[in-house]
């Protein structure tokens, strides 16, 4: 048995669910998850399996329990034909009512209450729910020394230097304490080793860290954070140099756009444009394209395109959804108190489904609720119009060379 991953396939009967739950417990013990986290992991397993039993009857489910970077994760995959897909929305609008303590009638959102990250996706003909709990890592002692750095600078991806950088950064950036990488730098290394996050440091010739920048690439977009400048001198110079090195690193890697929702720390020169609180930069020449835009958002999107200096032909998105029922893929990141939605299937019940989700999210006081939609897809553009009417506002547009442009809409109460 590979202790980093366990795969089991069971029928969703009470007998088998009971038999498999101790496996989750054993996994948390192997990874020495602290008691509270271990309890949450086991509770989540029970709640998800019970939920699926209620939704699918005694169908088969593939279970994977695995080490997932900074998380321990569980994944439940069922064949598409085994479940009414509306049951995979966080809120199933076709279920009569929810009773909070009744496991069998609870919503999927409720089933996911114990976990730190949670998403629903479609993968090769299966619906998959992945839920994760943050692992327990050894605490690092604070490192309150601020280095003094002189050029020439080097870049480093040495693990020890990256770890040290976060140890120092933790002291310099107390407002980042909510971020697990700052709270516990070993969690950063766990994700880094798995390739979920990329990073490098700028150092001096003696490899004393001066700055660190981290990023991940999703669908041709590099979403980065930082640079977090560690030195007490030459801060602007180091900040600018870090960003320049990041751009050079990403230059030939299929990246269309670099983006960050955060303020840019220290001087990042003139390397980015800035619209609506988001810094971005295209990596290649963009020669326009066509966008489907719902009439309700036409003016907003046109103005936004002008601010971004992007040339797009706008086509009015009309018509209706082809499918009957909708499935919204959701990614909950508890650390940020944030939910990100993307539609998997857009059906004629989309408005009701989205509304039901918003009602629940507002009850649970999520700080950030977003939905990401492709404007190169007519139906997703229609969905943007519906979301707009429901209180979602355009936050930013992610350019995709006019082939895969997306908008991120953010809910405003």
């Amino acid at each position, binding site marked *: 048995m590979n202790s980093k991953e366990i795969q089991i396939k069971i029928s969703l009967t009470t007998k088998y669910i009971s038999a498999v739950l101790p496996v989750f417990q054993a996994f948390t013990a192997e990874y020495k998850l602290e008691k509270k986290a271990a309890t949450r992991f086991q509770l989540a397993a029970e709640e998800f399996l019970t939920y699926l039993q209620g939704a699918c009857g005694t169908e088969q489910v593939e279970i994977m329990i695995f080490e997932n970077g900074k998380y321990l994760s569980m994944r439940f995959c069922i064949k598409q034909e085994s479940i009414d897909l509306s049951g995979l929305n966080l809120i199933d609008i076709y279920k009569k009512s929810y009773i909070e303590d009744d496991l069998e009638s609870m919503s999927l959102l409720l089933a996911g209450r114990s976990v730190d990250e949670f998403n629903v996706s479609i993968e090769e003909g299966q619906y998959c729910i992945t839920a994760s709990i943050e692992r327990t890592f050894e605490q690092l002692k604070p490192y309150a020394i601020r280095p003094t750095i002189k050029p020439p600078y080097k870049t480093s991806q040495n693990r020890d230097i990256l770890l040290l950088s976060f140890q120092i950064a933790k002291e310099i950036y107390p407002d980042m304490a909510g971020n697990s990488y700052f709270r516990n730098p070993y969690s950063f290394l766990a994700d880094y080793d798995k390739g979920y996050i990329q990073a490098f440091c700028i150092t001096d010739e003696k490899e004393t860290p001066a700055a660190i920048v981290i990023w991940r690439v999703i669908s041709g977009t590099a979403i980065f954070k930082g640079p977090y400048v560690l030195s007490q001198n030459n801060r602007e110079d180091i900040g600018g140099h870090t960003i320049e090195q990041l751009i*050079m690193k990403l230059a*030939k890697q299929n990246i269309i756009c670099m983006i960050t929702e955060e303020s840019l720390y220290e001087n990042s*020169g003139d390397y*980015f*444009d800035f619209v609506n609180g988001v810094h971005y930069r295209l*990596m290649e020449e*963009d*020669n326009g394209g066509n966008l489907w835009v719902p009439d309700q958002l036409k003016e907003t999107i046109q103005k936004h395109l002008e601010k971004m200096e992007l040339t797009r032909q706008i086509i009015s998105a009309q018509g209706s959804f082809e499918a009957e029922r909708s499935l919204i893929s959701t990614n909950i990141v508890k650390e940020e108190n944030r939910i990100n939605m993307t539609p998997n299937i857009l059906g004629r019940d989309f408005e009701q489904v989205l509304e039901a989700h918003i009602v629940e999210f507002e009850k649970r006081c999520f700080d950030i609720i977003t939905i990401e939609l492709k404007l190169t897809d007519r139906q997703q553009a229609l969905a943007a119009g519906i979301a707009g009417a429901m209180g979602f506002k355009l936050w930013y547009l992610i350019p995709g060379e006019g082939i895969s442009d997306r908008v991120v809409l953010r809910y405003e109460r």
Partner: protein
Amino acid sequence: MKDRFIPEILAPDYIKAIDPYIPSIPDSELKKMYGINKLHRLNNNENPLGPPSMARKVLEDFEMGRVSIYPSGDSYYIRYALAEKFKKSPQQFLVGNGSNEVIACAIKAFCQSGDNIVTAERTYATYEWIAEFSGIEPKLVPLNEKYEYDPERMLAAIDDNTKIIFICNPNNPTGTWWSKDTMVNFIERAGNRIIVIDEAYGEFVENCDFPDAMELMNTYENVVCFRTFSKMYGLAGIRIGYLCGSDKCIDLLRRAYTVYSVNSLGQVAAKAAIEQGDEHIKQTRIMVNEARNYLRKEFENMGIEMQLGEGIFCMAKMNCPDTTMYRRLMKHGIMVRTMTGFRFPNWIRITYSTMDVMRDFIEALKQCI
């Protein structure tokens, strides 16, 4: 039920990792998109004076009947014309469908899995690109602080698995170059490797200290020279370039060579360009010098950091992302090359052109900054 076809599992990992090159869309489509009537292409280092007069004439006089007949499979007449011009044997030349093809030929002929090539980190991207999609590691060496190829760092990067070293001289996009002494010193220390000296922009250099790879290969058998008809000779649309090396090198390169890849039009035009003589080169150099001096003055007045080296181009650093400046200039009918892809973020590269076009460019730039 039919199995789903998944082509990704058939492709090697090094292919999947590559960023496919997407050429720009045709001018007519760009004009529509940007709502402009005219477009000055200053992005591809094309010669605005076009091809030499004799090449023009043979293209105009090209007999249509020949299009249904295969061209010479190894560009016979071009090789003989080049041999006469450069006092070499015709067997020392390989002619390809653009210099990209001959670069690929070199890598295919000499490199296998586990080998690497050495070149600069910020240079003509094709060496790195072709190496990558051939599954060969490109070892990329930073330029020095003057944006020149750094000979010591290049030498330090060479290891037992290095088969080819690519030197773009003068360098695209910085226009910097190695003198004769620097080149010879490097070749003598580089060991038993193929040294490809890419002189795509060599004809633009008037400095007598600029090395001539055609001469160097007489002394150093491992030197291979690339040249093209796309730049100085204004035949970019015909797609024709060549390499020259020692008999031994070319004998091996020929085994990886694609015959019949150069079309008949290209062959007649290139032959005419070779035989014409140097008047066209002289006129082009005059145009380039005039444009360079004009831009130098304008950039200085505007406080713009610039890199004005040799070749038919220069670079200028913008106070915004180069990709943003590209879009702004396009709205004024000016197309430049963004340099992020060359690892020069915020820089643009501008092809020199006739003075009316250079003035249009500066006028547009002033409105865009």
